[in-house]
């Protein structure tokens, strides 16, 4: 544990694998983009009156543990969406910076951040988009409608299909990039020690 950041042992294995394969030099950009993404979540948690407890990084991705005192589905949705929004903002800023300064690396950073944000918007249970959608459904309907499950299924299958298609076009690399993007963003917002909900 370093302050609020906990690094699981499995993370180092994953890092070794990715470093070994990272011929393109994308990894630093992925880390920076991921950091800003998490920062977005953490900021939203603060603004929603919660307390950010720790960020646990493992081979499976990043988990945020927060103590949400004032909980509501709306706040949960906001917190989930804060990640992709932060990624989008960061992408725009980096792209503008690249255009202004001519520093090519910022284009890469902008692209990676945009990809991360967009990827997280996918309506899949494990990703921000899916969790925000679920929270909104709970708020509006009071339950998870069947439509939601259908959406999850459709997008999950589509994602798998896209991965297979890209693999057939250019080799088995999309799983790698999905892993890399998901590892930094396929997070689970967990709340622990939450006190009574006052709606």
């Amino acid at each position, binding site marked *: 544990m370093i302050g609020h950041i906990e690094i699981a042992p499995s993370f180092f294995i994953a890092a070794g694998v990715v470093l070994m394969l990272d011929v393109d030099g994308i990894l630093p950009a992925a880390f920076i983009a991921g950091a800003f993404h998490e920062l977005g979540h953490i900021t939203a948690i603060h603004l929603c009156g919660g307390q950010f407890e720790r960020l646990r990084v493992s081979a499976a991705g990043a988990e945020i543990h927060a103590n949400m005192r004032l909980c509501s589905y709306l706040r949960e949705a906001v917190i989930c969406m804060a990640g992709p929004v932060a990624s989008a903002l960061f992408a725009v800023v980096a*792209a503008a910076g690249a255009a202004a300064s001519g520093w090519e690396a910022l*284009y890469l950073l902008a692209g990676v951040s945009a990809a991360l944000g967009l990827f997280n918007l996918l309506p899949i249970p494990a990703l921000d988009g899916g969790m925000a959608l679920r929270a909104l459904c709970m708020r509006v309907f009071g339950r998870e409608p069947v439509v939601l499950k259908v959406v999850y299924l459709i997008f999950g299958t589509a994602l798998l299909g896209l991965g297979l298609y890209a693999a057939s*076009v250019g080799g088995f690399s999309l799983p790698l990039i999905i892993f890399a993007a998901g590892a930094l963003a396929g997070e689970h917002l967990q709340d622990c020690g939450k006190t009574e909900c006052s709606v």
Partner: protein
Amino acid sequence: MTGGEFLYRATYEGKRAKRRGTVKKDQHGGSLMVRTMICMVLGAALWAAGTFIPGVKETAAKYIGGSLDYRAAFSAAGEAIAGERRAKEVWSALVGEDETVDTYVGEIAASGDITYSVTTLDDEQTAEQMNEKAREEYAGIGMVPPEEYSEQLLPFPAGENAGEEDAPDTVSYDYLVFEFDYEQPLEGTVTSGFGYRIHPVTKKLSFHYGIDIGAPMGSDITAFADGTVELVGYNSTYGNYLFIRHRDGIISFYGHCSSIDVCEGQLVKMGEAVAAVGSTGISTGPHLHFEVRSGDTILDPSLYVYSGEV
């Protein structure tokens, strides 16, 4: 407590309880240190294997990585956000559709300025001396019939003063007279001439296959002469580029554009706007990289336009 609230609490807390079960509490507090150390060592070993043992990274990447160029795709996406590229080019950057360009233009253009391993001086003085010598050797005006042209090409002499590098075989300093009207494609200042120079990005002595004309971003680039748009594309070296084919097998090339305003197969007239100045690809600022070729042979553009400014 209303019914709605009750349902909310029950669902939320039920979910929370379920999640708690998946949060692995670390019962082996002491061995966490050991496991972390072991994993750090293994991770470092993997990284080292990839970095220091030749071939490991490439083999592993080939089996797991394939041929998708993510770096180019992400860079293209970033440029698209900045408004300098079209979004659909992200996909072509990913799958490397520019590979077709390589076969068309030959290796030299696609790989950018080739850097030779110069073991002697690499300062601007030497580059200028080499250019001077090249011009002296090959200055001349002559009508060269296209079919005999390749035999007229003389390789750059590798004498004592010229350095140890081989000349790019497809370059000619010959002044090939064009039997059609032509004009300069852009109003601007020549920032880098044809021939040997210190590359602005790599800082190495290399051969520049065209001339760079600096101009404000978005300035109109016009066609060098009447012709047909032969190829429009993008690669990571030259950014947005286009080729126009003119008479007698003469081809003009325009690179680093911010946008291309014509399509392949379109007929264009001399002076017609075909693209806009940009800084796409490997570029330190908005400029046009302009080349003139006769078939596969690369000519010195400053013999035709911007003479006296180079």
